[in-house]
């Protein structure tokens, strides 16, 4: 699609795009290029010179037990966050959609945690499950369950998954509710006339019609779990215990800034870059398809 009516001039438009081009070049393309470049070198321990190693950093990473473990951790973590946050959101959206009156009020009550930063959500959940003062920990203790996410890997993973999913429910709820309300009532009523009960209607009509929304949310939530949950991990577990919650983004940070292993960190950035690009391509393919329909 192109505009028919155009203004003349070459310098003015160049001037107009200049600020964005400059900022993008300096703070986006140059650093992204640097990440790729640095990933081919190993700096000496004093940071004075660096040695070209080709794909050595990548080879090393892929054979590194900890890095592979981090991949698995990320896969488990993002799958769980996506499933939990989307599952709860879909459940609530289906309920809200059944209401004739009041779904707007519930929407208002449910959407605002979107505004709570992941790092703040992390602090809230860490407080509730704190091993010394946490309320939930205390009541679990009464029930005879000894909660300790500082030592127990499974409990640490559960806690970061819940804290990451919690704030995300709002976002998914909003999109699911909009998707549900866009389904023509006549379709559902026709099924009801044919005697289909609620669950049958949901399984055979509503859920398939909702699939564009579901697919979109799937991609967006995976991206969220990969990157934006850094704050949750950093505030609650710092990647521990024994790297049980060290997701890939956390490892880039831990190796690059805490461990000062720049070559490895850069190589990890490049791998993440590839992962995001794949997700982006999947999403664009999907948008393209939606345009055709």
């Amino acid at each position, binding site marked *: 699609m192109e505009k028919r009516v155009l203004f003349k001039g070459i310098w003015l438009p160049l001037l107009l795009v200049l600020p964005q081009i400059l900022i993008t070049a300096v703070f986006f393309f140059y650093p992204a290029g640097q990440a790729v470049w640095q990933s081919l070198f190993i700096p000496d321990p004093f940071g004075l010179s660096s040695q070209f190693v080709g794909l050595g950093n990548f080879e090393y990473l892929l054979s590194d037990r900890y890095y592979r473990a981090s991949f698995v951790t990320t896969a488990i973590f993002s799958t769980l966050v996506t499933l939990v946050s989307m599952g709860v959101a879909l459940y609530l959206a289906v309920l809200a959609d059944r209401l004739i009156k009041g779904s707007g009020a519930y929407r208002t*009550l449910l959407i605002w945690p979107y505004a709570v930063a992941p790092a703040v959500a992390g602090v809230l959940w860490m407080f509730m499950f704190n091993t*010394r003062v946490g309320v939930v920990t205390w009541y679990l203790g009464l029930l005879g369950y000894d909660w300790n996410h500082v030592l127990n890997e499974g409990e640490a993973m559960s806690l970061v998954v819940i804290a990451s999913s919690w704030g995300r429910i709002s976002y998914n709820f909003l999109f699911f509710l909009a998707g549900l309300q866009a389904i023509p009532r006549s379709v559902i009523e026709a099924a009801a006339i044919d005697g289909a009960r609620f669950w049958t209607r949901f399984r055979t009509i509503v859920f398939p019609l909702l699939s564009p929304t579901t697919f979109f949310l799937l991609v967006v939530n995976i991206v969220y779990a990969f990157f934006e949950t850094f704050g949750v991990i950093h505030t609650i577990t710092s990647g521990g215990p024994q790297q049980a919650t060290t997701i890939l983004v956390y490892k880039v940070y831990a190796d690059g800034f805490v461990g000062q292993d720049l070559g490895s960190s850069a190589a990890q950035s490049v791998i993440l870059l590839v992962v995001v690009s794949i997700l*982006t391509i999947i999403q664009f393919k999907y948008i393209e398809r939606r345009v055709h329909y």
Partner: protein
Amino acid sequence: MSRSPRSGMVENRGLGLWLTHAGLILGVAFIFFPIWLAFVASTVSQPEIVHPPMPLVPGDQFFENYRKALVAGVNAPVALMLLNSGVMAIGIAVGKIIISLLSAFAIVYFRFPFRRVFFWLIFLTLMLPVEVRIVPTYEVVAGFGMLNSYSGLILPLIASATATFLFRQFFMTVPDELAEAARVDGARPMQFFWDILLPMSRTNIAALFVILFIYGWNQYLWPLLITTDPSMNTIVMGIKQMFPSGDDIADWPVIMATSILAMLPPVVVVIGMQRLFIRGLVESEK
């Protein structure tokens, strides 16, 4: 989202209706509980928290705790961190909107050399979060001497094209007749931009502002890296810094008061501008 009244067949009444409400209330309770606890913790005294279980209804230390947090804080006064967050969030939102409006205007209404190249370069940045290129971006910012500065906090985060793309899509829907009429009347391009295009984009700008403000306010990793000076900390990253290292006991009431203060501005924005927020959210994800 209006819809026609439903027929009786798929309507639920009686027990079903109550179960629906019960399910939703359960969901709301799950969402609210952590925030309620944080609020309660911000109104009681330290001993009440460190001897569990803490109370579940607010205490009488509200003013004391919030005053202590705002004025003294732990490493830096929280009032200062709020100011830093505000400058960062507004800087990101306004900065991104301005550069995006200008470049979208150029790309849609002009033909100039490398136009397509520019468009694709900008487009490439669409989904790549700052987390991915974090180390080299840090080095660039450090090289410019922008550590512990507002420009260091803001500039790297406006280097992405979501807003440009959004405005481009919107400008495409503006009728050509408007530009034609402006040109016939002898209006210069910037006059058309300022007098016609900008007023028409008002709602889009506002919706985008809401989304970008929340995005900027909630940044964590970036401020964590480049603000080593506590007086430049933003509130969202500053909370974690308030926890003592080692075995010392955290000042929970002050930390929880800070957490409440940290979520207040974006939550107020979301609730107060719900319409714009939903619109911005849906459009920026399209």
